[in-house]
């Protein structure tokens, strides 16, 4: 999913895309693909850059797994846009992933802290 050699392993971002999307969908209540892409880029201050087209298959997979729910809404200009809302199952998984991430990050920081001898 990641496109850019910005000093991180693209597999690292690929493995955490679901968490990023779930987190933002949960926080926004209801949001859509383009807004998610824009928000990830803004919040990471341009650090995370996606091939934007890959976000839509990722959203579809979340939907297939019952983690988010999609709904078409008609816009004033007559176009349709698909909005995503997190499900209870998605919220549970997000909480687990956040806990896991925090434990992992803490453990990494502990191990990688320079020794004081």
């Amino acid at each position, binding site marked *: 999913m990641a496109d850019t050699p910005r000093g991180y392993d693209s597999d690292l971002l690929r493995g955490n895309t679901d968490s990023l999307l779930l987190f933002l969908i949960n926080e926004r209540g209801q949001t859509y*693909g*383009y807004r998610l892409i824009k928000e990830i880029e803004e919040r990471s201050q341009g650090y995370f850059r996606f091939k934007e087209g890959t976000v*839509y298959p990722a959203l579809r997979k979340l939907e297939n797994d019952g983690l988010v729910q999609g709904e078409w809404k008609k816009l004033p200009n007559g176009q349709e846009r*698909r909005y995503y809302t997190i499900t209870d199952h998605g919220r549970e998984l997000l909480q687990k992933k956040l806990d896991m991430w925090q434990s992992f990050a803490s453990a990494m920081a502990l191990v990688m802290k320079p020794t004081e001898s």
Partner: protein
Amino acid sequence: MQREVSSYLDEVKSHLHLDPRTSRRVINELYSHFEEKVSDLAQQGLPEPEAAQTALRSFGEARSIARLLDEAHSGGSWTEALIGCQPHLIVAALFATHVWRHPLLLGTAFAAIAVIALLGWRSGGASWMYSWIGYAVLPLLVLSYLSMDPLARTISFLVSGHGAPAPFWHIGLLAALYAFTLWLFTSTAVTVARRDWILLSLMLLPLPVMGLWIITVTQSAGVFVDALRSLEARFSRWDGAMGYFFAVLGVTTALFVRVRQRALKVGAVIAVGIVGTAIAARSLWGDLGFLPLLAMCFCLLLFLTVPLFLRTMLRHDDRSEEPLPS
């Protein structure tokens, strides 16, 4: 919207293998993405053509995005996989229990298969239904083959003057049957190939073995029940082999419905179609020898990939079929 964006979305669409409704919605979602992105970039001061180019560049290559979208949409549930493999398992059971020799039970099984296939078709094209459709058209194909005798007699009479021709009404009835079978088979095949050629290959998967078996049975014994009884011992052996073959088709179909990766789907259908049919042919006809076996495998490969050529021919029509949102 810029022409480049429209042709990009056309290209994505041409590589999608989804049912028309899902495909349309996927493209609508991407269209609304581009609309907003181009508008955002234009507000930042980029001229619209350049904004469209930038939006396309950051979206990714059309073919790989279509592949990801396909994969995301195509993995069926276990329930769908279970439903998809049922017609093969029903036919496997008909052979394993020798029930295919009871016309009433055989007719009931195929009528039930046809009804379920029709319901699946009308519900909009779930991936489980294609195996059912293959069996739903089978009785008409078999009937057409078995009823060729009067036609052959009439042709022989017209050509050589020997024998007696079939009555005119008989020939008229046969012509109607052939026309209907041809129309039903062709229109179904075209509709399925329009969605995805590999679904048509999946649908056609049981036909070669069924064809070999019917030809072998009718050549050996004709179609009369008394004559069939005379081949009891051979049938028992054939029934076992046919039962195994259709059970393998059932497992293959379940795998096909369940997995997301297209390469796996194509590989499973082609490999099982060729190897399975060749093994079934060996148990019907005995050792064929290397060259005939090779020729048969080649014909099977051709048969299972004809849908790909059909799809390529239809692609041009598809591009003009549904305009993008405007």
